[in-house]
Structures are given as structure tokens and as C-alpha cells.
């Protein structure tokens, strides 16, 4: 979330689309309710009427996978009706940037496209054709009047001209009247002093165009001036209590802690690596915060290798594994490699891929090709027991499976980072039961053992032997030691701006991290979380900030540097005064002399950089200032996003499996850069009469993830005892299915049994000339429990296709059939 949970209460209009917050983030509705009590309008757009829809002022349905068409229509509406915040759009976004002459878009394809002959990626773009035009000094050319015919604003206008109501309605199945109602209501937040927010989750990420769905909304938020303001932002409701923390600390393959890049084999020295990922801006008004990259990467290496990391050995850079250039190691790719027999050992740690991964049958088959698997979890699950699962012959499976019982969260001390980026410390409750252990202890012991083995022999032992591995006290994992290492320490007596920091002292903030080895920090983004003043995450003050908007700056800690609303320097006008006087985030209090600020300071939230405002009160420009979007190279919010794999503007494409014969916007059917796998276990079927209905997956309030923690819980099983499939009354009639009867749901990849819930909450869609039915299934079940073994995961049906930017699978839109048993 750019904002945070409590801040939802400050919104004037909340759009819940791509998530089902009432059911899956129930606490969020405490704040949604507060906003509504203060007069906010709640809009919900979802293929199915949910418990969220039940509370919404405005509800409408769209066919799964058509969100870009829906939101593209909103962009057109905002532009046609001149509803955007002109000053914000011109000054704070790249709307005025001039795009080079090489850029083009024709019939669904952007310039620079090349089809891939070998998968899994269907194709890629030469993004150099999307570059901005630069002036002689290397600064982007900007027309802040937004009139230049190659400026981003005009290109965007042209791009979304095609997204008229008629076309959008034909694609989404949403009535024109409903589209207009949503557009009109939400666009009203473009007025100064009004804030609109978006709450999205896996309903947007899990598509072959998932990243671009979120980008479409980000563009809307920028144009309406909703980024950086209270009650605004782009808010991802994360799917687990600590998934934000795990992302920040590099659970994903392509990043290091703090969103540093994973080194590639061609980055053959630390200097080459730093040079490749440190952006350079020639604009004196761009903070270009990532210019500090080497300070963060070197501090991270110092945290990894301690004293052993020296300037002479490039701080241990060459001890780290590198990924092959251009090769992808995502979830999909790992299991693809495992399926092909190229991975022999596997730690399934706190996960249940046999149920959670898209196209789960392939994953189950892949597990059988391993030599060994270690299942670290609080209970046995479908992954650890895959060898005795449905359709498996244990006598033919050679995989040796070990179970390491793990302690549950309340039995451990440590921190979690919630969706709002708040790092919150938790104390240990009861001690772990039996021989179960906190993950920290398991991994510490594992590390010690591996180090011991490498002391005597082993190829390339240096990285293992030199790894700093001292996060224990009295032989037990010590979360405080880990947290301090993550924050960072001075590795030698250091003097910065006349202040002396002793060796071993905790670094107060990432602004003090150094690229010379004098500081170590396990994650620059968390530097400031555990300082000489104490454990910031453990704070519990209920005192609010002076703006009284629910920031509670001394409750827990949030990255970066306790800034509760990021991009907050865009919450003020050029003179540093808030767009919204009532719910202001920051404001500049300056001494004015002759119309000019002569001194001053920001009050409210921690500002995105302490530079003075862009203009003086008399309207003259200042030179000691920076553009507000400090993490972007050019300092501007990106309406044009030339970094994405699939195009600088979001474009509607159909899901890999879809119910229509053609894309009503172009002749390109599916995202031409989508990732599609192609082993014999990876079938797909689109516009195929055998699988005529759209299928989608979701969660319910009563279960959690693959159900590992909730399916053995009887009170929860009482509420949702079995796998179900929701369908409209019309579809039930078509198939002769009665409410409550067991039916078969099948895709080309597999089939499962489910109880039919025939409901008014699903309605058939009118798509062009066709009537399209959609069904929905939860993904919380698995054969291991309940004991009947009949309740299976939705992921037996979901497709082997993903988003080109993230490789997140398209589990929200695929094709199925539903029949009586």
C-alpha cells in the first residue's frame, strides 16, 4: 500500500476492484465503514456479488480479465470531460514528457515487438523505441502545456480514444449505464480536496495482464491527483499478514533485500553491477534516489559477510551466485525445471505448492521427480504427502521426504510487516510444542551444519565459510540480533557531518549508509527501524501526528524512515500547501520575505525528502527543490511506463483462455509478451466448446490460503465444510443443476467435485452477440483434509500462463465446464 489501513478512513470514494476486502481483509472494513460514515461512497466492481458488494453503494459486474478495458474507458471519460487535476498532471507526472519518434502503437502492438520462437515467453519488445526525447543536457524534453502531439498526455488520449462506452461494454459485459455511474462517481475525486482510493489484491495480479491492470489504475490515480494524499493511493491488500515483509526481504528470485537487483552473470564485478543498476539523471531537480544504490548494495554485502567483506575482495560480491542473463527463475520456471527432472532437491518451507500452485497436477508430478524434499511446516500437507495423494503410486516414487515441524507464529518473537508497510514487533507467547522449532532456529542450525561440512571439503567453499552467521544468544535464534543486522551498524568509528558514530553503533537512517564498507545493513529500506533509541517496531503509542489523520507515527514503524504515506510531496501544490486543507498529510511552514520562502520546514508526516517547495508564494520557481516522485529517475509519476515488459500504456488483451472469438479492440488476442508453458502437462483451451464457461478462483473469510491452518479447525469447517462452485440461476437451469447438489467442474487440465451454490450473485454476461456464463471456486481445499479426500484444490484447473513482468499465474480467468455428476 502506498498509504495504510487506517488511512482508508480519510477517503471520499473507495473503489474495491480486484479484491474482496470485506471477506478477505475483514479488518479493512473497520476503516471502510468509518469512511462511509463520513460520507464516502463505496464502489465495488467484481464478476460476482460478494459480501463486499453487499455493503457497497454502487455495485456492478465485469467479466473476469477485462479490467483494463473497464479502466481504459474511465481514462477516456476523465479526459473527455476534463476531470483531471491539471496542475498535478502537468507538474508531477510525466504527462508532458515528449516521447521519441520511434514510438508507435498499431492494432494491439507497440513498436519494437519481436515474437519469440522458443517459449515460455511469447515475445518481447525492444524498449528503446519507447524512450523519451532529451535536450542537449540529457534532461527529458517536457511540454507542461500538454499540447505537443508526441507528449505522453496526447499519446494517452489517442491510445484510449478507442475505449468508448460501446466497445468497453461489449468486452466487459458491464452495461453502459453502470460504466457511466462508476466513471462519474470515481472521477469526481479529481477535484482538489477530494481523495479516491483503490483497494485491489489478487483479483488484479493474477492475470496475464495483471501488472498492467494495476498500472491503468495508477494512471487514473495520478491524473486525478490521488497519489500521496490522505485517503488516496494505490493500495495492494496483501494476501498474508507478512507478505509485504517477505517481499521487502527478497523472497522473490529477482531481487535482493530492499528491492536491489539480483546480479546477472554479465555483472562480472561489483563496479559493473552497481553501474548497471544505478540510474543517472542529468536533471538538477530530480532527487533520483536510486543514485544511492552502491551505498545500499555494499552495506548489504557487509551484512552478509561481515569482516570478511573488504574493498579488496569487492566486499564478497563474487561469492554470491549470479543468475544467467535473460533467464527467469520464477515459481513457474522452478517447477517447470523440476518437472523436466533438472532440480533434484527441494525445500518446501512454509508453503503448500501441491495445492497453491497454478496447474497443480504438474507440480505434484514434478515433486515425484525429486531425489529429496524437506517439508518445513506446522502440519503435514498435500505437498509433504504428495506421494500418497490421488493418482499416485507410492511404489513408483523415489522422492525421499523429510518433515521439519515448525513453530506457529505466536510461539515466536519477531516482526511482521503488514500491507501498510508497518513493521510490528510481536513477543513470544507460548513456547513451541514438542520438537517443533521457530524457523529462525531451523535455519540457523542448518547453516551451522552446512558450514561445518564445507570446512573440511566442498567446491567453492568461500561463500559458505565467510557467511556471517551469528544471530543467536545462548544457542537460540535471537530475533533482536537479526533485526539489528537488518537495520545496520557502523563497522568502524565513522564521522559524518561532525558527528562521530562508534563502531558497532546502530545506523540511525539509510541516509547515513556508506559505499565504502564503513556501514553494514541487511536491508537499507529498514534502516531506521532498530536504532540506538530502541526497537522502533515495538512502539505502541496512540498519539497521532499534528494533522490528526490517523498516522500514529509512534505506533510500530514503517518503511521508508517511518513515512506513513509515500509520495506525500505530491499531496501539496507547487507552493507546498496541501490540496486538501482538511485531511492534509504534509505542509510547508515557511518564513516569507518579499514573496519568497527564506526558511521553513515541513510538518505532518515524514516528507518525501526535506527540500523546499517547487515554488515561492509569489509563484517564482525555486532551484533548491526536487520533483516529488523521488524514487523515479526523472522525479515524475509515470503515466507513460517505458519499463514494463508489455508496453508503456496498458492495453486490453483477452486471457490466455477466453470465451470470445476475437478481441474487440485489436487483432492481437492475448498479451503478446505473456508467459505460457508447453510441456504435455501444460494444456490450454480457448474459445473451445468443451469448456464454455469462464472460471475464476477466490478466497472466503472462513479459510486461509490452501487451508492448511483452517481445514483442521472444526469451527471453521462448520462454516465452510466443502469445496463449492458458485453459478448463476441461468447456468444452473442450462445444465439442469439443483442448488446444493454435487457437480463436476473441469478444465482441460483436470477436474474436481464441488457443491453447487446456485445464486443470484452471479449473472450471465452479454458479450457482443454471446451470452457468457461465469463460475467461481475457492482454492482453500485439498485431498489431505477433510478425511473424505474428495475436496480438492481449484488449482487442478488453473492455467500454465503468467504475467510477463511478474510471472504471477492467470488463476483469475480461465475456461471450464460444469456438469452434473
Amino acid at each position, binding site marked *: 500500500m502506498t498509504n495504510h489501513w487506517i488511512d482508508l478512513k480519510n477517503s471520499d470514494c473507495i473503489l474495491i476492484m480486484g479484491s474482496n476486502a470485506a471477506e478477505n481483509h*475483514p479488518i479493512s*472494513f473497520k476503516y471502510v465503514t468509518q469512511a462511509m460514515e463520513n460520507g464516502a461512497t463505496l464502489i465495488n466492481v467484481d464478476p460476482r456479488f460478494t459480501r463486499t458488494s453487499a455493503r457497497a453503494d454502487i455495485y456492478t459486474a465485469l467479466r473476469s480479465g477485462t479490467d483494463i478495458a473497464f479502466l481504459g474507458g474511465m481514462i477516456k471519460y476523465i479526459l473527455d470531460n476534463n476531470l483531471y487535476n491539471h496542475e498535478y498532471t502537468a507538474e508531477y507526472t510525466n504527462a508532458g514528457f515528449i516521447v521519441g519518434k520511434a514510438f508507435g502503437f498499431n492494432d494491439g502492438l507497440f513498436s519494437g515487438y519481436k515474437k519469440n520462437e522458443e517459449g515460455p515467453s511469447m515475445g518481447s519488445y525492444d524498449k528503446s523505441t519507447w524512450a523519451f526525447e532529451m535536450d542537449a543536457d540529457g534532461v527529458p524534453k517536457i511540454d507542461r502545456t500538454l499540447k505537443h502531439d508526441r507528449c505522453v498526455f496526447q499519446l494517452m488520449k489517442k491510445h484510449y480514444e478507442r475505449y468508448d462506452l460501446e466497445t468497453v461494454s461489449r468486452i466487459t459485459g458491464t452495461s453502459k449505464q453502470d460504466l457511466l455511474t462508476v466513471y462519474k462517481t470515481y472521477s469526481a475525486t479529481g477535484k482538489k480536496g477530494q481523495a479516491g482510493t483503490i483497494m485491489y489484491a489478487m483479483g488484479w495480479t493474477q492475470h496475464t495482464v495483471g501488472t498492467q491492470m494495476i498500472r491503468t489504475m495508477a494512471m487514473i490515480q495520478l491524473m486525478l491527483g490521488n497519489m500521496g494524499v490522505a485517503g488516496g493511493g494505490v493500495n495492494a491488500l496483501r494476501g498474508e499478514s507478512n507478505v509485504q515483509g517477505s517481499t521487502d526481504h527478497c523472497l522473490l528470485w529477482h531481487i535482493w533485500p530492499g528491492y536491489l537487483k539480483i546480479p546477472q552473470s554479465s555483472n562480472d564485478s561489483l563496479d559493473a553491477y552497481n553501474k548497471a543498476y544505478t540510474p543517472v539523471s542529468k536533471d538538477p531537480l530530480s532527487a533520483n534516489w536510486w543514485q544511492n544504490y552502491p551505498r545500499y548494495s555494499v552495506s548489504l554485502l557487509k551484512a552478509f559477510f561481515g569482516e570478511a567483506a573488504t574493498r579488496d575482495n569487492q566486499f564478497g560480491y563474487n561469492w554470491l551466485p549470479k543468475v544467467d542473463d535473460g533467464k527467469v527463475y520464477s515459481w513457474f520456471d522452478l517447477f517447470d525445471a523440476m518437472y523436466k527432472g533438472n532440480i533434484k532437491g527441494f525445500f518446501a518451507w512454509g508453503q503448500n505448492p501441491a495445492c497453491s500452485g497454478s496447474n497443480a497436477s504438474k507440480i505434484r508430478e514434478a515433486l515425484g521427480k525429486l531425489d529429496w524434499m524437506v517439508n518445513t511446516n506446522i502440519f503435514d500437507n498435500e505437498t509433504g504427502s504428495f506421494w500418497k495423494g490421488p493418482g499416485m503410486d507410492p511404489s513408483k516414487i523415489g522422492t525421499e521426504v523429510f518433515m521439519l515441524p515448525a513453530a506457529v507464529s505466536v510461539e515466536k518473537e519477531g516482526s511482521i510487516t503488514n500491507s501498510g508497510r508497518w513493521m510490528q514487533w510481536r513477543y513470544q507467547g507460548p513456547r513451541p510444542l514438542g520438537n517443533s522449532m521457530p524457523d529462525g532456529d531451523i535455519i540457523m542450525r542448518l547453516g551451522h551444519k552446512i558450514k561445518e561440512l564445507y570446512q573440511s571439503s566442498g567446491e567453492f567453499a568461500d561463500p559458505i565459510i565467510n557467511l556471517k552467521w551469528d544471530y543467536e544468544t545462548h544457542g537460540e535464534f535471537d530475533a533482536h540480533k537479526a533485526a539489528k543486522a537488518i537495520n545496520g551498524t557502523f563497522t568502524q568509528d565513522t564521522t559524518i557531518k561532525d558527528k562521530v558514530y562508534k563502531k558497532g553503533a546502530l545506523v540511525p537512517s539509510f541516509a547515513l549508509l556508506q559505499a565504502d564498507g564503513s556501514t553494514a545493513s541487511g536491508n537499507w529500506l529498514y534502516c531506521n527501524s532498530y536504532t540506538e533509541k530502541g526497537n522502533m517496531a515495538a512502539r505502541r503509542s496512540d498519539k497521532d501526528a499534528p494533522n490528526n489523520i490517523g498516522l500514529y507515527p509512534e505506533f510500530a514503524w514503517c518503511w521508508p524512515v517511518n513515512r506513513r504515506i509515500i509520495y506525500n510531496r505530491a499531496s501539496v501544490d507547487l507552493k507546498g500547501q496541501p490540496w486538501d486543507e482538511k485531511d492534509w498529510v504534509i505542509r510547508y511552514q515557511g518564513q516569507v520575505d518579499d514573496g519568497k520562502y527564506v526558511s521553513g520546514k515541513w510538518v505532518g508526516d515524514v516528507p518525501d525528502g526535506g527540500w523546499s517547495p517547487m515554488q515561492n508564494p509569489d509563484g517564482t520557481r525555486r532551484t533548491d527543490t526536487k520533483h516529488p516522485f523521488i524514487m523515479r529517475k526523472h522525479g515524475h509519476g509515470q503515466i507513460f511506463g517505458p519499463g514494463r515488459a508489455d508496453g508503456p500504456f496498458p492495453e486490453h488483451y483477452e486471457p490466455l483462455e477466453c470465451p470470445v472469438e476475437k478481441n474487440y479492440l485489436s487483432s492481437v488476442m492475448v498479451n503478446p509478451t505473456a508467459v505460457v508453458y508447453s510441456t504435455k502437462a501444460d494444456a490450454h483451451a480457448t474459445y473451445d466448446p468443451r469448456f464454455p464457461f469462464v472460471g475464476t478462483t477466490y478466497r472466503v473469510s472462513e479459510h486461509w490460503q490452501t487451508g492448511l491452518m483452517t481445514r483442521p479447525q472444526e469451527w471453521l469447517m462448520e*462454516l465452510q465444510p466443502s469445496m463449492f462452485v458458485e453459478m448463476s440461476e441461468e447456468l444452473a437451469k442450462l445444465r439442469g443443476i439443483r442448488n*446444493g447438489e454435487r457437480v463436476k467442474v473441469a478444465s482441460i487440465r483436470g477436474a474436481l467435485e464441488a457443491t453447487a451454490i446456485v445464486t443470484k450473485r452471479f449473472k450471465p454476461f452479454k458479450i457482443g452477440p454471446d451470452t457468457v456464463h461465469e463460475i467461481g471456486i475457492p482454492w482453500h481445499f485439498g485431498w489431505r483434509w477433510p478425511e473424505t479426500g474428495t475436496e480438492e484444490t481449484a488449482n487442478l484447473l488453473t492455467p500454465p500462463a503468467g504475467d510477463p513482468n511478474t510471472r504471477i499465474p492467470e488463476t483469475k480467468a480461465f475456461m471450464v465446464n460444469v456438469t452434473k455428476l
Partner: protein
Amino acid sequence: MTKAILIDTTLCTACRACQVACKQWHDLPAEQTTNVGSFQNPQDLSDRTYKLVRMTETVIENRLKWLFFPDQCRHCLDAPCLSMAVDESAIYRDDLTGAILYTRNTRHLDPEEINVSCPYDIPRAGNDGIIAKCDFCNDRIHNGLKPACVTACPTGAMQFGDREDILSMADDRLKRVRKKFPGASLLNPDEVSVIYLVAFDPSVYSDYAVAQAHQGRGGISRSVALRKMIGPLARMMHIG
């Protein structure tokens, strides 16, 4: 000052945290349920389910509604079940909190009679003959805690406090809610300690959302009819 709960159904999201919190505090066993084609489960109250979120799909003025009604004992100010029982060792009222409380001695009562006496169709007997229902979390209240269901509610749909405060809160809420839902109403506020606020015709939420005379689960028996008739008299005698 007795206590009261306000349940504003216009704020309920049917997350059912209240339903689970109730089971947890009272350590009640789960029921073996099946999905009968609805999210609502169990299908009805029982001696082991004191709180149940009833869920109804309906179309009102051409708009689909999914209505949620967290059903439970109303803890009537003048409780017919208590009058019907005439046995303080089985059913009694805690005058400090207003809770209507059932004991194990309810096994000596006729469960049919007690059920039929309840205008909200709440009390249920188990196989052991003990009649059970929501106890207002009276033990929690006496220890300075709110009822478990109220504590668990994430949206503030359930509020707990002194009766007078809750009544005034209910009036305020009704005024606000009526701006959006002109047909909104409070259900029997002068007769119960658990006051519901609903946006639409209460009978759509539950057959017994408002007090109803009913025939009981197996039809009304002669003895029940008789008891119903003499109930008020018996109660007067009891008080005397």
C-alpha cells in the same frame, strides 16, 4: 443499570467472527455441517450454536441484496421463557446485567414449551434435554469484558454498553441509516436487550426478526396453549 447490545445489520459483513468467537468463549463443539447451496452454516441455531449469521439473497426495488442477520437471544426485559419455566433453578434473570440465563436444570423443562414461548424462536435443547442459548457472555460482563461476539466484530456492527447509552446510540444510528434506507427500523427496542437495526422489512432477514407468536417446531400442543394462556398469571404469582 442493565446492559444492552446494538446490532446494526447495515454494517455487518457476515465475516462470522462473532459466530466463531461465541463458540470459542463457550467452548462449544463444532457441528458436522454440509454445504446445502449457501454460505450460511449451520442452517439453524442449536444447543451448540448460540449465535448464527443468517444470510438471505433477495431483490428489493430491482437491486440485489445480500442481507446478514447475526441471530441470537434477545434477553427480553420481560422474558416469556422465564415466565413459562417458573423455575428459577432452570431459567433466571441476572438483574444486574439483564441477562436471561439457562442452567442444567432446564433438562427438567419441556423444551417444546420453552421454544414456543420464545417470540424469537431461540432456545434449543440438546440430546441430553438441556436447553441452551446465548448467555449474554454474562461471565465476561461481570469481569469487565464485552461479550465475545461484540469484541470480535471488526466493523463495529455490534456495540455493547449500558442500556440507556445503547438506546440513545440506536436512535442516533437509526436517524443516520434512514438517510440511506428510509425504511430502516429498530426491532422491539423497548422489549429486548439485544436491539437490531435493519434497513428493510425485518421479515426478509428472518422469520423471527421481530417478535412473533409461533407454532413451535412440532406444532402447538394443548399443554403449551394452556401454558401460554396462564403464563402471565403464573409470572405474577412468581413475582408476588
